[in-house]
């Protein structure tokens, strides 16, 4: 505990960087997954290759991705940009399927009614389908958020600035306190992301609150 | 015989779903529980096989207190059919039907034969045996549900809105088929529905319940229609009860007029009437035509098929309906084989109704009830 209080500033700094490395890719990943998921839904034959193909990205070990990506992007190995790209890839891997299934969870009658009222496909997507898919997408986003926070800490192996540095610090010095603080900080960050996603979901789905249904 | 004796069910949240219910469901008969949504029908039914435990009172089965039996054993002796059939999606139709016999350890061969025979009885041939529930229509699933409940040949059946999830035409079919089956099987049945028409059609006796779990009236269907005890029952039984009551009155000897007919394919030119009845080679009525509008022979497309056909031995309701629905206002009456016997006009049916005695059915619970 004293160790934690003594290193509060450091925890805060690394925590902020960790939050950016894990959080920004969530937004980027979602932005990329939305059109991909829509395509997988719109053209049925794309569903299997898309969900399977992007899902495969998730099996690339983060350890390797963090090291190899700099070679591809041409940036320095410690450049956060690489981590952002890697985490975005993982997010996309998780979310393409989620978005496709979320859009698929919208009842056909609703989409048909919207079409019958004269919505163009584009307007219908933003006005009807996307809002109704929010609960499912949000569930996937929560998984991705928690997973991102954990994976970012693997960046420790190459020395990226984030909470995982406490792990290697403690490990090298055979000293529990930094590791425990790092783990707790990661969990708190993950729960924080989770809470934010939940709140946003609630704001976006007032109709679920009205009937007391769960998101 | 199933006997409810002062049965009350109060849910933990304080809702009294069934209030001091005393009721007998006689052996070999269908007792229907009917009433508005939330009046405690399902709760009453599920207390019989102890899916729900009564808060007080006893339910006995052939004199034995069900509360003293082991729940799972009690249930194996009671067939249970529910609204959406509740088939096991992972099992084939045949396996579904075989569930209870297997549970009670009946032999393999015996089980199989019985299951196949039951499927046949509910109108699903061997083709369906190997299908999965997801490959059946709603009506077919419901049939399997009935077969499954019958599989171990339980003397008692509980049916909770078994036919309500299918369209009216299929529902009607299922009801008819089930009544025919029941004629052979003679099970002791409690049947729940919120549809008064279904209650009247299916029930040997009908228990009308009102919200709060009160038994409002218990009577045979005809008596119920003729003598609702209070405004609630009268209201629930509905507007057309006078008309519907005719369902239970056999047609007396009606003054049948013989009808001039032509056979399909003949010419109608020399008929001097607004309407003429067309029959097939066996004298079975097919429909009416207007001779003035037809030159040449009468084809199937020209037939007016609006009129219903009543059996001479059937209820008055059908005869009146035949007369009212016929374009010529002459109701077509046939014998049991479907061959034409004659026609009857609406006023003749009404006269017959007026002359017939107002039906007085002994109220089983209340023999002294006024015969209106």
């Amino acid at each position, binding site marked *: 505990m004293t160790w934690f209080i003594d290193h509060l500033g450091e925890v805060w700094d690394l925590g902020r960087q960790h939050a950016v490395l894990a959080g920004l890719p969530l937004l980027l990943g979602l932005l990329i997954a939305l059109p991909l998921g829509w395509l997988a839904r719109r053209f049925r034959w794309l*569903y299997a290759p898309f*969900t*399977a193909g992007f899902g*495969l990205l*998730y*099996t690339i*070990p983060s*350890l*390797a991705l963090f*090291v*190899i990506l700099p*070679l591809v992007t041409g940036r320095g190995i410690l450049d956060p940009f690489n981590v952002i790209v890697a985490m975005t890839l993982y997010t996309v*891997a*998780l979310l393409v399927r989620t978005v496709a*299934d979320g859009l*698929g969870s919208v009842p056909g009658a609703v989409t048909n009614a919207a079409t019958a009222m004269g919505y163009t496909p584009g307007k219908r997507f933003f006005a009807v389908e996307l809002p109704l898919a929010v609960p499912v997408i949000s*569930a*996937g986003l929560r*998984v991705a958020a*928690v997973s991102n926070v*954990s994976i970012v*800490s693997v960046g*420790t*192996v190459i020395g990226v600035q984030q*909470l995982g540095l406490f792990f*290697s610090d403690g490990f090298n010095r*055979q000293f*529990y306190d930094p*590791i425990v603080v790092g*783990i707790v900080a*990661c*969990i708190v960050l993950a*729960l924080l992301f989770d809470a934010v996603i939940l709140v946003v979901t609630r704001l976006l789905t007032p109709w679920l609150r009205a009937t007391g249904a769960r998101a | 015989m199933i006997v409810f004796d002062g049965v009350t069910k109060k849910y933990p949240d304080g809702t009294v779903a069934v209030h001091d219910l005393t009721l007998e469901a006689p052996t070999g008969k269908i007792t229907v529980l009917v009433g508005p949504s939330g009046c405690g029908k399902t709760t009453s039914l599920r207390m019989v*096989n102890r*899916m729900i435990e009564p808060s007080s009172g006893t339910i006995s089965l052939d004199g034995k207190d069900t509360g003293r039996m082991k*729940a*799972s*054993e*009690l*249930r194996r002796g*009671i067939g249970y059919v*529910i609204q*959406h059939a*509740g088939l*096991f*999606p*992972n*099992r084939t139709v045949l396996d579904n039907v075989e*569930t*209870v016999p297997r*549970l009670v350890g009946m032999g393999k061969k015996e089980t199989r034969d019985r299951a196949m025979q039951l499927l046949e009885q509910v109108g699903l041939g061997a083709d369906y045996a190997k299908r*999965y*529930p*997801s*490959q059946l*229509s709603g009506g077919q*699933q419901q049939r399997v549900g009935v077969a*499954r*409940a019958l599989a171990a040949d339980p003397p008692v059946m509980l049916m909770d809105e078994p036919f309500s999830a299918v*369209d009216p035409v299929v529902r009607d079919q299922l009801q008819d088929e089930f009544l025919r089956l029941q004629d052979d099987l003679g099970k002791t049945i409690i049947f729940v529905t919120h549809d008064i028409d279904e209650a009247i059609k299916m029930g040997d006796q009908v228990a009308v319940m009102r919200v709060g779990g009160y038994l409002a009236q218990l009577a045979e269907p005809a008596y119920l229609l003729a003598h609702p005890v209070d405004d609630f029952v009268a209201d629930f039984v509905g507007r057309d009860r006078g008309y519907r009551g005719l369902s239970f009155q056999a047609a007396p000897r009606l003054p049948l007029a013989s009808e001039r007919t032509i056979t399909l394919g003949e010419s109608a030119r020399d008929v001097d009437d607004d309407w003429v009845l067309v029959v097939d080679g066996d004298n079975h009525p097919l429909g009416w035509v207007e001779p003035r509008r037809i030159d040449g022979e009468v084809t199937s497309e020209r037939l007016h098929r609006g009129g219903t056909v009543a059996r001479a031995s059937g209820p008055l309701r059908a005869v009146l309906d035949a007369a009212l629905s016929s374009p010529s206002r002459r109701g077509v009456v046939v014998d049991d084989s479907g061959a034409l016997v004659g026609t009857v006009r609406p006023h003749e049916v009404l006269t017959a109704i007026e002359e017939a005695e107002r039906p007085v059915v002994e109220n089983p619970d209340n023999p002294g009830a006024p015969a209106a």
Partner: protein
Amino acid sequence: MIASTWQWLTDPVNWSGPGSIPNQILTHLWYSAIALFVASLIAIPAGLAIGHTGRGRFFGVNLAAAARAIPSLGLLFLMVLWLFPKFSGSSGSAAFVVPSLIVLAVLAIPPILAGAYAGVEGVDPAARDAAKGMGMTGMQVLRRVEIPNAMPLIFSGFRSATLQVIATATLAAVVGADGLGRFLIDGQKIRDYPQMAGGSLVVAILALVVDLLLGTIQRYAVSPGLTGRRTSASRRGRSDGVSGSAESAGRSNTPLDVEISDPRRTVDSQPS
């Protein structure tokens, strides 16, 4: 880069001997299998119990969520520090392997647990009601109705867990254990990028192959009534709509985690 990776992958030197690709694959699989086995032993009974009784749902779900949030690397370091002295007497590698296995099992528990309880919870309430009503005991309902019908989601959860475990088992190498992670760590140390890329490729392929294998097993283990030519979606259409399973399947449409390959394998992922 691609060429040199290919060269590394096809170099015969890497295909024989103690630290060779086949050996590391076997070790990797072995670690993953033990971790998944232990995780299943805990998570499946717990998930079934939660789904069957409806009790402990809040507790179980939140515990699983918390377990997901534990950073694997941190837990790994912590476990090694803590367990290392306890293993100092025994033969070398156990001190690294056991912590790795614990970390992998912790990683695998949440998706397996979620699959099991969501699967049981999603069983058509009418089917469950009918099973009870015909006199099945609680255990019989579970064994004959709930588990068979939960199979698609149980598999789905297990497969997600498998993918994550296989990808994460590479971390074991960070603390000195074997497995395919060796190529990544050793490669990084000597800046042998082809070795790293090759190693990652092997991991990804391994994950894919195992997933396909599980998919095949699933096809035989899951009743055709649940996966057959008709899905819950079309059944909904046919039975006038209100079947409980269809409803709850729609609502439990939460992706359990990562999913690759055959889209038909989750009951709730069918395009409708």
